[in-house]
C-alpha cells in the first residue's frame, strides 16, 4: 500500500524547508453520517520529524486540523542526501512512517 505521507524537503543555503501532506480523514467527531449518526473522531495526534538523530519538529494535532493535513516548517542545517524521517500516530493508535531524502 502506498505511503500516506507525501513530503518535500529542500535544502537551501543554511536552512531546509519541509512540506508534508498526509492522507488521513481527520474526522472531528462533530459530523453526522447519512443516517444521522455522529462519525466518531478519527484524527492524527502526533507527527514527528527527525533527521541526523534529532527531532526537528513535532506537530500535535487535534480534530480541527483539515482533512488530508498539510504542514510546512524550516530548520537550520540539513543537506542534500540526508534522511528525513516522518512518523504519525492517530487517536486509534494507527501509525505510518516514511523516510525521504532531503533534496
Amino acid at each position, binding site marked *: 500500500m502506498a505511503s500516506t505521507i507525501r513530503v518535500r524537503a529542500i535544502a537551501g543555503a543554511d536552512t531546509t524547508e519541509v512540506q508534508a501532506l498526509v492522507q488521513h480523514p481527520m474526522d472531528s467527531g462533530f459530523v453526522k453520517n447519512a443516517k444521522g449518526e455522529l462519525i466518531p473522531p478519527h484524527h492524527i495526534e502526533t507527527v514527528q520529524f527527525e533527521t541526523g538523530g*534529532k527531532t526537528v519538529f513535532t506537530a500535535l494535532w487535534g480534530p480541527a486540523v483539515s482533512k488530508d493535513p498539510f504542514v510546512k516548517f524550516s*530548520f537550520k542545517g540539513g543537506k542534500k542526501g540526508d534522511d528525513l524521517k516522518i512518523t504519525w500516530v492517530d487517536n486509534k493508535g494507527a501509525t505510518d512512517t516514511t523516510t525521504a531524502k532531503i533534496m
Partner: protein
Amino acid sequence: MFIAKLPDLRTSRRGLLKGAALATVLGASLNVMRSVAAFAADAAGWPAEAFKLKSQDDTLKALYGKTAEASDKVKLDAPEIAENGAVVPISVSTTLPKVTSISLMVAENPNALAASYKIPEGTLPAVSNRLKMAKTSKVIAIVESDGKLYSASKEVKVTVGGCGG
C-alpha cells in the same frame, strides 16, 4: 513513572481527572527544572486535556500553565474570508527569540485548541498549516518565547462551516 501514567489520561473520566491533576503538578515542576516547552504531557505524548477545552484561557492554562500577552512580533497570516471553513490556510511566524512552541486556537470552534507545534533549537519559529473553522471566529496564534507566551489574533470570516455544515 509519569510516562507510564499517560494511557490513563484518556481511558476513563476518573483517570482523566487524576491524570490532569498529576500532569498539572508535574508540569509545574518541569517548568522549574528546564527551560524547554513544558507541556502537561510527556515529550512524545499528546496533550489530551488541552485539546478538550472550550475556552482559550483554560486551554493555555492546561497547555502551558501561563497566560499570553499580545505582541506585534507575532505574525499571523490568515485569510479575511475563508474560501471554505473546512480548509483554511494559516501561517504563523515571529521575530521573537528562543521560541520553543507555537500553538493555534480558533475561538468559536467546539474546542479552542486546533494545533500545537514543538520548536526545538535550530528550527525556525514559523509554521504553515490548514485548519477547520466551524464559523466566523478569531484565530489566535500563541508563541512561547524564552518561557513567556505571546499572542496575535485575527478574525477570519467563514461562510461555509468546516465541521460539515
